[in-house]
Structures are given as C-alpha cells and as structure tokens.
C-alpha cells in the first residue's frame, strides 16, 4: 500500500503550509526521528510528530498501541472532542465497545470518577441502552459510575453534553447520535470542543451511521467490527469460540496521520489494547480469569494407535449423531 512519491510530496508540502498558517514548529513534520521505534520508521503510512511546542506529555491518551499512538501524534487528545464513527447502526455495539475501552483506559488514571453517556431517544431505541452488567465485566466500569441521559431531541442532547463537558466531575462524557443531523454542524461541535478543552476532559462523540461531515473534532476514528479472536486454552485456540472483542479502527481524520487501518483487540483482564497483525498468534497470556491450570503430571504417553480415524478429529461414521445419517427403512 505504498503511496506514490509524488502524492507523498504533495501531502508533505500541504502539511508544511498548514504548519506555517498555524504557527507550529516545522520539525514536527520531518520524517521520523532516528530514535523512533523501528516499526514506525518501517511504515510509510505515518509521520511522527516530534517536538510539538504546545502539547504537553500528558495531553494525549495513549492507546497502548505504538503504531496507532504514533500515527495520532501521541495518542488521542485528552482535552478535546473526538469523533468515533460507525458506518452502520448495526455497528453500534462495536462502536460503543471501542468508546468504552477508551473510557476504561481513562478510568485507569481517574479511578472512581463517573462517566456520563448522553444519547438521543432515537439511538437508544435503535441500538439499545448501555447495559451495566456487561460494562462491568468487560471494561471494569462499575454500575454506580455510569450515568446516562436520554434526551428526547438532539438539541436537548447537545445541551446536556455541553453542560456536562463544562464539568470536571466526569471522567469522560459520551455523546451518541445517529446519522448526520443538521444541528450537529461545525458550530455545535466547536462549542463542544471548546467546553472539553476548557475542562480538560475528553468528550467522545459517537456517530452511528454518520457521514464524514466537517466538524471541529481534531480526530475522527472510524470503527467497524472485526472477528473476535478464539478463546485461548491450554491446548491452543479453541475452534469456533468467541473470545476477546476486536475492533477495526480507521483513522478518518487527523492533523498528523495519513489514513491507516489498525485491528485492535481489547483485553478485558488487563484493560488494555493489543494490536492484531495479520497471521499472528495472540500474545496475551493463555489463562483467562484465573491462575494457570495445573500442569499435567507425569510423562505423557501416546495411546496405542488401534484404529486411528482417517480424518483427524472427525468422529467415525458409527459415532455420528443418528439424525445426520439417512435413516434406512425397516
């Protein structure tokens, strides 16, 4: 997926122009510094933003994925409006899951603070209400930490979100809307962004089935579902099982990053992301929620190969369930 050299040159020239307009330091646009991690330099899709004069070290929420953090220039901005898009309403679970995993990362540092989830009545009807029991198991969000607010109209939802974004008492505010409503325009998002900046709290705008409208959010991520990994057992991955949730994340808009795609896996035990690369085996520990099972004792002996079935683990014809085989008359 290498870009043509001309296209890259154009992009860099444009970025330099933007930097001049914004008055930021030009070296952030330089190609990756020599000290940068190898995989970053190896990728031709990202630029590393270094030496940014305005951003403090803790201005970004690190997702824990080196490549994604580098692409976003340090991570997701902490004091800002961030957009998370889902392409279709049926992706609502995935988008909500990704947003909640970000919230879970935030809560690692701000323990005990509540979060507020604002949604319109339409989206809660279409995509379901947040379910406290599921949130606790997967993201470690206690039921008493969650507040949610169902607004009959979008304007009311925007008002609630704005008022909530002013406050520092919430660890994060999630605003969820469906589609691309007219009211959620550049002005409205700019207001939200300004409130989030002042309170230095993240405001996540979830847009289910939304278009990529111009908004004030510096970062837009497009999240879609990815097949979950299989459950890990002692004997390797268990075929046909559904393990940890996975998300496919595209960077839809960012000041620094070129478009790129990442497949992230959420580890509910450690509350951390792990990146899934193609054909990789999971690097997470095998045991789920407990200690490792006791190792097998004694020497392992092979069974004598009396009647080894020809097709591996497939049961023999005699062992097949009765209802599968055609019944003979009589």
């Amino acid at each position, binding site marked *: 997926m290498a870009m043509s050299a001309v296209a890259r040159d154009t992009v860099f020239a444009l970025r330099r122009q933007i930097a001049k307009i914004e008055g930021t330091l030009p070296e952030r646009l330089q190609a990756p510094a020599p000290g940068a991690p190898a995989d970053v330099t190896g990728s031709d899709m990202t630029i590393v933003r270094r030496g940014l004069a305005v951003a403090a070290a803790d201005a970004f929420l690190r997702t824990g994925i080196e490549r994604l953090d580098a692409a976003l220039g340090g991570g997701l901005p902490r004091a800002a409006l961030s957009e998370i898009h889902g392409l279709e309403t*049926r*992706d*609502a*679970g*995935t988008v*909500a*899951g*990704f947003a*909640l*995993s970000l919230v879970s990362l935030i809560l690692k540092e701000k*323990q*005990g*603070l*509540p979060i507020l989830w604002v949604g319109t009545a339409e989206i809660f*009807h279409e*995509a*379901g*209400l*947040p*379910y*406290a*029991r*599921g*949130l606790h*198991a*997967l993201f470690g969000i*206690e*039921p*008493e930490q*969650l*507040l*949610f*607010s*169902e*607004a*009959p109209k979008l304007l*009311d939802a925007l*008002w*609630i979100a704005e*008022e*909530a974004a002013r*406050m*520092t*008492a919430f660890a994060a505010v999630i605003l969820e809307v469906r589609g691309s409503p007219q009211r959620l325009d550049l002005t409205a998002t700019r207001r939200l962004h300004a409130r989030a900046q002042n309170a230095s709290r993240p405001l996540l705008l979830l847009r289910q089935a939304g278009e990529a409208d111009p908004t004030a959010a510096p970062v837009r991520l497009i999240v*879609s*579902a*990815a*097949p*979950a990994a299989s459950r890990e057992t002692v004997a390797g991955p268990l075929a*046909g*099982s*559904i393990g940890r*949730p*996975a998300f*496919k994340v595209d960077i839809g808009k960012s000041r620094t990053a070129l478009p790129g795609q990442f497949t992230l896996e*959420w580890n509910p035990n450690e509350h951390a992301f792990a990146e899934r690369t193609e054909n990789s085996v999971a690097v997470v520990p095998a045991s*789920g*929620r*407990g200690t490792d099972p006791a190792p097998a004792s004694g020497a392992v002996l092979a069974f004598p190969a009396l009647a080894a079935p020809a097709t591996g683990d497939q049961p023999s014809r005699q062992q097949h*369930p009765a209802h599968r085989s055609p019944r003979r008359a009589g």
Partner: protein
Amino acid sequence: MISHRDNNTQRIAALDERAEALKLKRGMGIADARAMHPSIDVVEADAEADRRLLEGLADWCDRYTPLVAIDAEDGLFLDVTGCTHLFGGERAMQDEILTRFFQQGFDVRAGLASTPGAAWAAARFHGDRIVAGGEEEALLAPLPLSALRIAPETRAGLESVGLRTAGAVMAAPRAPLARRFGASLLLRLDQALGRLDEAVSPRLPVAPLSVERHLAEPVVLTDEIERLVSRLAVALKSDLERRGEGARTLALLLFRVDGAVSRIAVGTSRPMREPRLIQRLFHERLTALEQSIDAGFGFDLVRLSVLSVAAFDMLQGDLTGEADDDDADIALFADRVRARLGEAAVLKPVVVESHLPERAVKTVPFAEAPQRRAPAAGRAALPRTAPPMTIYPPERPVRLFRSPEPIEVPATEIPEGPPMNFRWRRALYRVARAEGPERIAAEWWRQLPGEEEAPTRDYYHIEDSEGRRYWLYRQGLYSTAPQAAPPRWFMHGVFA
C-alpha cells in the same frame, strides 16, 4: 340559565337575576319554564367545568392563605388564622377578597367566623358578615335548619316535629335529638358553635416554608422573575439555616393579575439552600417552560415555597477554600437537566439480583438512586462490587434492547442449537460462530399462582460473518407435541 338532568327531567340548576325576575325558580322543569317564557336561553350544566373553575379560584385564593379547601360544588373555605394582619385586618381582608372577585366578574358572598360552620352559615345566609368569636349562637339562632349543614332527611325529620330554626334545635334537649336523628346533627351543631374542633382539610399540602413578594407593578419578563427568585431564595436561606435543613422540592407560584396561577416545581437530589443554585434550577425550568407560561398582563405576586425539606449536612471546606466536591457538582448538574427535561432525563443503573437480564439492571432517576459513597482522599479505589460466586461470570452484552426484538430463524443446524442465519430488521445475517446455549429459566418465585410458567430462554452469543457480535435467545423448546407452537427467537443485545 343553566339546566341539568335530574330524575329524567331537565330542571333549572342555576339562573341569573333576570331569570329570577321572571319568577323562575331553581328546580323548576325546563318545559314549564319554556312554556312561561319561550325566549329564555338554556345551557346544559357542565359539572366538570364548574369544578375546574372552582379549582382555579382556589389556586388564586392561595395568595391569602395556604389553607384553602373546596366545599362541595360552590364554596371555598379559607383558613385565614394568622393571615389577616397581612392585609390590614379581617374587614379589610374580606373587602379586598370581595372586590377582587367582583373585578374578575364573580358574584361571591363571604362570611368570616371563628368556626367553619358559622362562617358557612354567615356566607350563605347573610352575604357579607364578620362574626366575632362567641357570637355564633346569636348568628345561627334565627336561621333555618339548612344553615346547619345537615342531610335533607334529617332536616325534613326535624321540621316534621316542629323544629324549624337552628335556635329551636339548640334549645331542644340533646339526648332525645341524638337518639332520634343520630350523632351527626349534634356534631354539626357543636362544630358550628365552636364546642368541637373542625378541621378544614386543605387541598394542597402546606409548604413548611414560603416567602413571597407582592408587586405594585406586575412583572412580565422571565429575567425579572428569575431575579425575584434569587431575592426570595436569599430570604429563604436564612430560614433554612435556622432550621438546619435544605430544600428538596421547591415550588414557584406566579399569581397573574387576572387570577390565573402558574405553579412551577423543581426537585433537587440533595438538600439545597444556596440562592445561586436555586436560581439556576429555576432558570432551567423557566427556559423549558417559556412557551407554556403565559404572562398575560403580568404577575403581581410571586411566591417561592419549599415543599419538602431534608436535613442539611454542613461541610467544611479545606484550607485552600475550594471544596472539591464532585458529587455535589454532579447532583447539581442532574437537577438542572431534570428541571429542564423532566424526571427521567438523568438515569442511573442499579444492579438487582435477578437471573433475567432485563431485570438484573434497573434504571432509576438520578434523584432516587442510592447515593454513591464519595471516594475519600485516602482511599484510592472504591470497594468493588462483590463478584458473583461463579468462577466464570456469564458474559453480558454492552447494550441491551429495551424489549427483545423478534427475529426470524429459518433453520438451525441441530434442533436445539444456534441458528445458521437469521433475519433481523429485514436484513439477513449469516452466523459464523456461536457460543451457547446459556439457559435462563423464568423466575418461578415471581410468578403469580395460577399463572402459566414462562418458557425458558436459551441464549446464544453469535458472531456474524462480518465480525459483529449479538446476543440472541430462543424462547421455549422444540416439542414433538402436535399443537405445540415452534419456539420463537429474539435479539436481546449486542456485544462489543
């Protein structure tokens, strides 16, 4: 003239002076009246509208006393004990009430006495009279028996034995009266004379605290009302401080010049006494109600009452002077949202012990939810909720539909197994992987006796071909019985 249907005949229920001048009477048949005067105008009585009007007048009378009760179809009781001095004495107060009603176009008669019974009789049989304490007997004695508020049968019985005035009943020996006409006659008599206490039950609970401001020039603008609210709240604060309480429910009453009363209530999730916060709450409420409040010619009386109170815990700020009370911030935020958007605007999940997923989490309005314990500075983490006593807690979706949505399942691989594909919201989904079933049976302990047992649910965790994960269930089991309905499938939630 107003008619009503009584005993299958249209009769005159009420009539104006001009009709009275034509020698028409109450209770006369409409047919007779029409025969006498064909030109009369007859309107059907509307008891509901009369009632509403009376309620409205009772609301308006709130400006004189908080204790207003409705008496039958056409009367109001005002308990003005301790209120008269505010209006310059009994006579001045009664005159003002009568004048104001007259200006609104009502023909009212008022009586003021130290007992409800005597006041009732004075209003109905004298018109405009103030009965001093101790004069009840002199007032009642010449009046007919109906002044005693007794049942018509009792009255007829008394008249048949020759007792035609209240004075005659008072003079008669009590014991035979009680034996013959029951205790209620003597009870009414004693109440009217003040020998027994009679409580007037007010139609609205009396606010523990209220402050009000009469305005010479009526206010119209919302901003001015808000400014008045904050001034009234300042006055309220000292009262609340003296009592060591904070307000949980507040009501703002706006009395319009022409008699309409607007009642605006806000609730708080924790006791509150700070005028600034009270004003902010009312600001939200007034913004939300801007369209529905009609200021008309303006409001000439604004009253702020505290409807319910709770003990107010004093908090000591730290030395830096900035009390870092996040919970209070959130409570205020929730109250403001609630003031603007209604009771259910901010919700909080509460975990309930139940196996059924939709019962296991209850959502309650923020104000009713149990308060979160504030994380003290010393304690880093909250005490976690105890995990259930299973090694692997069952997996639950992140979003749950409000009510399970029916889906079509054409085929399953094995009879009691997960579906191979399913149709939900008119789209076809192909199942790539499935886990389950997790069987959740109905909770028999909630079942009413005689009720049929709800079918069990088998929940499956499904991943479709594009990687989305769903939680669906089959209600009931496949059965070989001939009339058995096939089990139905539902979508209940989505996983991350």
